[in-house]
């Protein structure tokens, strides 16, 4: 197939705009990386004459001896004129590459190097950051969990502890707490929200906890919803196993629109990223020659949460969410759209210190760099002291 398409491609060679993408995991992982990969395909479809090239598994375990900036250069050598780094892990590589190649626009997804007020501001003219405000997605997920839980025990399968994972976990808690009290009208004292961190983004036998075991343990201890904070699907597959054996348990995966996969009756829905529209606008601006660095912390399109062309993130309801709860969830989403802010005082940190005073709302800075979990959540806020 490649041989036949080549001559045709040659004619438009001059106009073709190639952009490169570095994926931290496999491009077809049905998670974080596939969301990015498909966003790349979306760009190809929406801007004629663009082509994506990629390298996946950009991590030192899979690609010994390489650095992200080095791999980005490989993409440049293959003609890439814009590079997307898709992971926080590539932070240093993305910054180094951007500094070394001022002519090439660089997008570092999930990073904060282009945030003027952020802790890691780099002041590079060609570095942009983009991140969806997944706090909303997690709040919706938390709400869906609270609405579906009968035991009031919600588990959160956390990866490793850092600022990003803390704020997302806390958001899920805030959503769950809000819906438990205000939508389901239950006693807040009956809600348990616990996070167990496996210690890494994926399972390394003999070194990290086993996410399968963590999910099992939640279900065994009467937790009937597990929200996944990791990119792999252990929570969902375990829920499916428990459900197949006659238990009523649910899971909420993460990252990818198709995250519920082929499961039946366990998936409450999935909060997902939709990187396509923002990537399209970055690529377009690069083609037009007016790429400007920015730190984009994108809210969803509240008019149409799941619109693939306008919303930076969304929430797809799963088949395990009954219509009645679905409607309640829609109401909650509408409230969020109407300006409901769950990151509003009074809110205490896990150790009891005040995070937000009565009536105070959190700034982006406060949310992004959340120092601890919130009061009321079970689980570690930081790795061992």
């Amino acid at each position, binding site marked *: 197939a490649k041989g036949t398409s080549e001559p045709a491609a040659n004619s438009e060679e001059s106009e073709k705009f190639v952009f490169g993408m570095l994926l931290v995991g496999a491009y077809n992982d049905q998670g974080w990386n596939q969301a990015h990969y498909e966003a790349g395909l979306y760009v190809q479809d929406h801007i004629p004459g663009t082509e994506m090239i990629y390298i996946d598994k950009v991590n030192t375990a899979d690609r010994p*001896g390489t650095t992200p900036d080095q791999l980005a250069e490989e993409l440049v050598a293959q003609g890439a004129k814009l590079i997307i780094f898709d992971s926080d892990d590539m932070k*240093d590589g993305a910054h180094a590459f951007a500094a070394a190649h001022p002519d090439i626009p660089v997008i570092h997804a999930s990073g904060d190097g282009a945030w003027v007020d952020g802790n890691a501001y780099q002041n590079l003219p060609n570095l942009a950051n983009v991140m969806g405000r997944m706090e909303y997605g997690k709040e919706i997920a938390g709400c869906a969990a609270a609405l579906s839980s009968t035991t009031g025990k919600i588990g959160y399968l956390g990866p490793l502890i850092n600022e990003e994972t803390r704020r997302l976990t806390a958001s899920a808690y805030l959503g769950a707490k809000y819906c438990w009290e205000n939508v389901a009208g239950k006693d807040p004292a009956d809600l348990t929200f616990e996070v167990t961190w496996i210690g890494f983004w994926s399972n390394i036998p003999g070194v990290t906890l086993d996410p399968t075991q963590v999910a099992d343990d939640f279900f065994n201890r009467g937790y009937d919803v597990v929200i996944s904070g990791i990119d792999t699907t252990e929570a969902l597959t375990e829920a499916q196993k428990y459900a197949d054996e006659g238990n009523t348990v649910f899971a909420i995966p993460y990252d990818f629109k198709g995250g519920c996969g082929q499961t039946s009756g366990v998936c409450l829905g999935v909060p997902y990223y939709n990187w396509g529209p923002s990537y399209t606008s970055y690529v377009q601006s690069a083609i037009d020659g007016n790429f400007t660095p920015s730190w984009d912390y994108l809210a969803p399109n509240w008019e149409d949460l799941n619109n693939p062309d306008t919303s930076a993130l969304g929430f797809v309801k799963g088949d395990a969410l009954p219509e009645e709860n679905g409607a309640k969830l829609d109401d909650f989403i509408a409230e969020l759209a109407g300006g409901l802010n769950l990151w509003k005082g009074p809110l205490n940190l896990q150790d009891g210190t005040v995070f937000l005073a009565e009536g105070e709302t959190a700034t982006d800075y406060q949310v992004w760099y959340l120092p601890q979990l919130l009061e009321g959540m079970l689980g570690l806020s930081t790795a061992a002291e």
Partner: protein
Amino acid sequence: MAVKEKKIGFAKRLPSSAVFSIASTVGALLFTSFILWMAGAQPGLTFEKILAGAFGDSVKIANGLVVWVPLSLTAGALIITFTAGLWNLGIEGQIMLGAIAATGTLRVLQNSLLSPVLIILFACLMGMVGGALWAALTGILRLFGGVSEIFAGVGLNFVATALSLWLIFDPWKRPGVGSMSGTEPFDERLWLATIPGYRLSLWSLVLVVVVFIGLFILLKKTRFGIQIKAIGKNLEAARLMGIQTRKQMMAAMLLCGGLAGLAGALQVVAVYHRLIPSISSGYGFLAMLVAMLANNNLMLALLVAYLFAILNIGGIQLPIVLHLDSTLSGVLQTALVLFFLIMNGVKQHLTERKERNRHAE
């Protein structure tokens, strides 16, 4: 390939060693082609792309050398222990501990008034010490605890991995965040100088050359070298000849760990400039394959390490241009060693048969 021509008459009529080397290479290529065919790819094109990816331009060649440096250092290190008959599977952990020790040293000294050159030198030195101490643990377990170095090494690798993760996510975490991207990168003045425009540091190339000349002298020209060779081939006889076997085996372990630690330290000061979760990059195990394929020959190890480095770097092209997974490089590397072992066995088999026939005449 590496096998020394025996001076025995009856070996003469056997096909020469080169024939077996070629046969094993062809076997590995055929096997890999078969795997490619199974994955629905064109073998010829794939190999071509790998080569293009390794030699396409000077940057790629330099990147190949960046991999070659730690790989050959580690292979050289392993040749010491292999010569002494020790299967030092703990090599991965030794690299990691080297990197950890180097990182720790840099952390302590980075704000001191010492000149960067001194700090880097000191970090490399401490890296060697770290690797050597980790190796010493395996050595002590083997020589005084009776625990096979294979299992002690494997166990300690896991411990080393856990140790580095713990350091990265806890005591040495970046301000506020533990990140998979590793510890906070060091200041640029603490980076080992590279050739402008390349990732390659001339110093590390020089280091490899120096280390290998040193290894060559050590193994071929010193009493220590010939003593560990004797130990590797016949421990009991070596002991009865008055060789201090324990001391020399321990020395072999320490040297190996030291060099592996140096490779780990170089990863910190020359490549990553920080401690990352899989800092050893699997070079330890890869180097083990290198040493096997090179049949513990130092010169060959340099070549084989380069071949493997090329495969690693060239393999990056596979997802970009062919939508194939880069682990194909690993398949080819391991297949080369497997077929080398098989052809080695076939050769020995034929040699023995010839010998038997000779006596039957």
